[in-house]
Structure formats: structure tokens, C-alpha cells
């Protein structure tokens, strides 16, 4: 099978500082590939190398099998949607979208035709003459995407395009974007530091940390089986503990809490437990479930997302525990003691 994008050991150094550190990956044609990572981890730099705005220090980069070495941005079959959108404020919607086509010296008829078609596709018919500054955030978003897509790139690069929107609109746009990508079938490479965006939209997600990739996987695998402690901590919410001892299948946390986790073939240093992995008042006959005594410290009521903050009696660590959405444990009170279970598989241990 051929990939639309293939990257081999790409590295970028700024002076002594390595912003991107020997990253390799491939992207399938028509896929939605996300790169997820914290601020400053090198996402933008990687994207800019793909677009040609930054020259790689080492490594190779192929688009549809062709090396991109020395090819300037304006000659690459990729387009980029910038974090702040970068719509041209001095042009209206139509002119923004037509910009790239006009640079290719296409006949006016064709430009007009393709712009209209594209605007239909993103649902902006009737907005042709509007100033881009008069549009709402979501509409601006779509103009930016249309402007790039109209050039029919092999790959569309998106650099945190939802970053500037407010929370409600972001929730909405991420669903819309996923649907749009499915419809048109262009390959998307999507950068974000918001794990929820990456999980919801992507076919495949790469988690990036300090210039290198920690894990490339489907969203579900990433969430369920994080391969490194960084991924476990970064993707989804998690309670993190340091592990000070592991002997005879028993983990001892920093504060002294002891849990059975047999069968590890390495010396773990970190333990992660997801808030929703805890079972409140479990029936005592469940197998492979560790039971922990806790005391409720605070109820963090948040509708369907309500949690409690609890204190492990034996060891004195604080944990966050999700409450089931069905309001089953509504009447918990602060100070109350309760027994909590967690399946041994849900004790995720890491070497570092």
C-alpha cells in the first residue's frame, strides 16, 4: 500500500535546541491523522516542515512517494489551515477562496465555478461578498478550510484550528469537521493540544512529547492502553501515583498504600488509575478487583460529569473518582467512608 505522506527520521534543530527529534510516521490516503501534544513540544515545527516553511535538519519527507527535498512551499501539494486562520482581511469571502486559484492563472470562469462549488460544500452560499471580519468564528473557520481545499491538495494540514473558538462552538465544530473530512475524503493532518479533539475526530493519533512521538495509535487504543506514562497522563484524566516498591506482586505507592498487581516483568515507578475505573461499593465477590477504603473529601458536582475527591485511608493519597451518570450515589456526603474497587487491569504501571 502507498501512503500519501511518509516521513522518515525527520529532525529539526534550532541552534542547539532540538525541536523535532527523529520522527517517523506514515499517513494513509484519506485518513484523519492527529498529532497531539503539549505546548512547545514541536507540533507546529513538524507541520511547517511538511508545508515547506521550515527546512528539515535531517530526515526525509515524501508526499505520494515523491521526495520534497528543496521544494518550496508554493510548489507542494499540501495546504495549511493556520491556528488563527490567517484569512486575508482586505478581501471578502469569495476573494479569499479564489486567491490560490488565481495564483495558478486559471481562467476566470473556472475560478468562479470552483469557488462556488467549494462554498456550497462548506455551507457558505450567500456569503460570497461578506467581509471576513463580519463572520462568526465557525464561519471563518469554514472559509479558511474552503480556501485551502479549493486547491485540491493531497494533504490538508490544520494547526490547532479550533484553538481560538469558545468552548461551546469548539464542541460543535469538532463534530462538523469530522463529518466534512469524511465527505470530501482529503487527507487531514490535524494538530492539537486538546486530547478530546484528537480522540473524537481522528482515525489515528500520534502523541508528541519534547520533539518525539510517544505512541501512534487509534483513539481507543490510546485511551485504553497507553504505552508510556506520558500518554497515560496526557490522554484523558488520570490519578497519578509514584510507586516506591514492587515486590511479590504488590505495589506500594509513595504514601504507603498497597495494591496487588501481580505479573509485572519490570520495576514500576508510576501508577495511573482513571477516575471512571473505580467501582463504588463493589460486590465483594468480584475477581481480580482491588478493594480500597476511602473517605470522601469533597463532592465536585458537575452534572453528568460529577466526581468526588476522596482520600485513601490507608496511605493518605487523594484521588478523583467519577460518579455514575445515573445519579446512583447522589446522597454521598463529605466525610463519609466508603469502599471502592478497581480492576487490576486498570492499574496501569510504567517504568518511568
Amino acid at each position, binding site marked *: 500500500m502507498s501512503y500519501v505522506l511518509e516521513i522518515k527520521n525527520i529532525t529539526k534543530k534550532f541552534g542547539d535546541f532540538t525541536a523535532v527529534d527523529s520522527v517517523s510516521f506514515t499517513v494513509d490516503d484519506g485518513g484523519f491523522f492527529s498529532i497531539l501534544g503539549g505546548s512547545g513540544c514541536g507540533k507546529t515545527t513538524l507541520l511547517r516542515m511538511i*508545508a515547506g*516553511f521550515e527546512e528539515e535538519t535531517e530526515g526525509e519527507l515524501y508526499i505520494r512517494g515523491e521526495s520534497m527535498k528543496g521544494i518550496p512551499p508554493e510548489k507542494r501539494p499540501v495546504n495549511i489551515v*493556520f491556528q488563527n486562520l490567517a484569512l486575508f482581511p482586505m478581501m471578502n469571502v469569495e476573494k479569499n477562496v479564489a*486567491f490560490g486559484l488565481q*495564483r495558478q492563472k486559471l481562467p476566470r470562469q473556472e475560478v468562479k465555478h470552483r469557488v462556488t462549488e467549494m462554498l456550497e460544500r462548506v455551507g457558505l452560499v450567500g456569503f460570497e461578498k461578506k467581509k471576513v471580519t463580519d463572520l462568526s468564528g465557525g464561519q471563518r473557520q469554514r472559509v479558511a478550510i474552503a480556501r*485551502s481545499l479549493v*486547491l485540491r491538495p493531497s494533504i490538508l494540514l490544520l494547526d490547532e484550528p479550533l484553538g481560538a473558538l469558545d468552548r461551546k462552538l469548539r464542541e460543535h465544530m469538532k463534530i462538523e469537521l469530522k463529518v466534512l473530512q469524511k465527505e470530501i475524503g482529503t487527507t487531514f493532518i490535524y494538530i492539537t493540544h486538546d486530547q478530546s479533539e484528537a480522540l473524537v475526530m481522528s482515525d489515528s493519533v500520534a502523541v508528541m512529547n519534547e520533539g518525539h512521538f510517544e505512541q501512534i495509535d487509534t483513539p481507543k487504543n490510546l485511551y485504553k492502553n497507553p504505552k508510556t506514562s506520558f500518554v497515560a497522563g496526557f490522554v484523558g484524566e488520570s490519578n497519578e501515583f509514584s510507586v516506591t516498591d514492587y515486590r511479590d506482586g504488590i505495589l506500594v505507592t509513595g504514601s504507603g498504600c498497597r495494591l496487588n498487581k501481580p505479573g509485572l516483568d519490570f520495576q514500576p515507578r508510576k501508577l495511573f488509575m482513571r477516575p471512571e475505573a473505580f467501582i463504588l461499593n463493589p460486590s465483594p465477590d468480584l475477581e481480580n478487583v482491588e478493594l480500597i477504603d476511602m473517605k470522601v473529601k469533597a463532592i465536585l458536582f458537575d452534572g453528568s460529569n460529577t466526581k468526588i475527591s476522596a482520600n485513601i485511608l490507608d496511605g493518605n493519597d487523594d484521588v478523583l473518582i467519577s460518579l455514575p451518570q445515573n445519579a446512583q450515589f447522589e446522597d454521598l456526603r463529605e466525610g463519609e467512608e466508603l469502599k471502592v474497587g478497581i480492576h487490576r487491569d486498570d492499574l496501569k504501571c510504567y517504568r518511568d
Partner: protein
Amino acid sequence: MIRTLPCSRLYKVGYSLYILLFYIFLIMPLVTICVLAFNDSNFIALPWNGFSLDWFFADTDDRLGLFKDPDLMMSVWTSVETGFFVAMFSTIVGTIAALLFEEERFRFKGLLYFLALAPLVIPGVVLGISILLTSTYTGTYMEETFGWDMEFLSPGFWLVVIGQFSFGATYVMLLVGARLKKFDKVLEEAALSLRATRLEVIRLITLPFLRPAIIGAFVVTFLISFSNFNTTIFLIGSDPTLPVDLYSRIKFSSTPVLNAVSFMIVMFITFSAMISFVLNRKKI
């Protein structure tokens, strides 16, 4: 204190009074000039001898009005011409400099930028004499060695233009550069990514964005040129600009015709300012 903070009456009144005095201080010389431009007297002083338009229109032996004084009219025109060329050259080169320093990375950029800012901290007099020295010695050298008489190298219209341009470009660079700093460089990358060439980017994206600043810079350099004295005085030939002419008239003689020219300038500036104010307000 500030708009949103309550404060005592005395403080408010005292503060407003100070501001009022300040504005009186500001306006007083201008009003005096304007009023005395219409005084029916041969001297630029009180007492008020009644209203007269002589200093605009008279053409007698002891009263030569502004519009009948070809020398004065000529120096106004010289100033306008000088201002136009200075503004044009400064705007072009200053804008180019702004683009260069904001957008390109190269060796010795810091040094070059420092040089471009230098006119801010070089007294105008020094700029004038250094250019005078160099042009004169170069001109003499050219003449003595090759027998070329390069007129623009001796004091005169073009040397004034060159001298004023040498610092005018700095102001343009700063004004345009300030706007360029607000310019999102990503817009240029976006255009490149949409297959535009570097020159197309400048033409279609950067310059349109800069247009208000460029127009503003043109006007500013025109006005700077129009009122410059310190540099100009050393470079002037037989066509004095208005400030140089005014200076020599104040030094050698003075009749209220000077008030008349000043009055015209005050009115012109004030009206242009008001018009631009009203236009800008409409835009907002």
C-alpha cells in the same frame, strides 16, 4: 483619578483648570499670529490699528502683501515641491526598509537597523553639515578630477531633498514598521501556501495591509519636510524653503506679511486636521 474612580470636587476642578491653562498656552501663539495678520499696521506688534487685508493683498512700497510677494510665494512653492519629493522618496525607501527589517533575516541586521535608527539621535544640524561636507568635497573632487560639474552635489533644491530624505526615511520606516509589527506574518505564509510568489505576497497581501500607514507616513514626512529648518539651512541654495525664508525675514526684517503666511499655514493645517478627523470618525 481615572474615568471609573470617584474623586473629590476640588481635585477634578483643579485638574481641569490645569488642562485649560495648558491648552491656552498651546493656542496662544497661534491665535496671536493669526489675529495680527489682519492688523492695519506696519509693525508686528500691538496696538491694534484696525482690520486690514493689506498683508495679504497690498502692493505698495511699504506694504507688500503675501499674494503680491513673488519671493514669498516662491518659497512656499519650493517647500511644497521639496515636501513632495522628500515624502515620495522617504515613503518608498522607508517602506522597503520596514519590509526588510521586519521580514528578512540576515547577517548584520542589527547593525543595519541601528544605522537606520541613527537619524533619531543625530541632531539635525549634524546631519546637515555632514551631508554638506561630503557633497561639497565630492563635488569639488569630481569637478577638479573629471571636470564634471555635478550640480545636485552643491547646495540647492536637490541637496535639500537628499538631506531631508536621509531622516525622513527613518520616520517612514518606524511608522510603517509599527503597522507591520501588527501584521500577522502568518498571512504571508498563508498566501505562500496558496501558491503565491514572494512578490505577489508583498503586492497582494502586505502592501494593502500597510496602505493606511503608508499614506499616513507620506503625509507625516511631507509635513516634517515642510517645517524643517535645522538640516535644510545648511543645504539650501538660491531657492529657500518657507522656514528658511521666514527665518531670514525674521532676522533681516519683519512686517506682518509673516503673520499672513503663518496664518495661511495655521489655517491649512487646522483644516486638514479637522477634515481627516471627521473622515476617520466616519470610518469608526
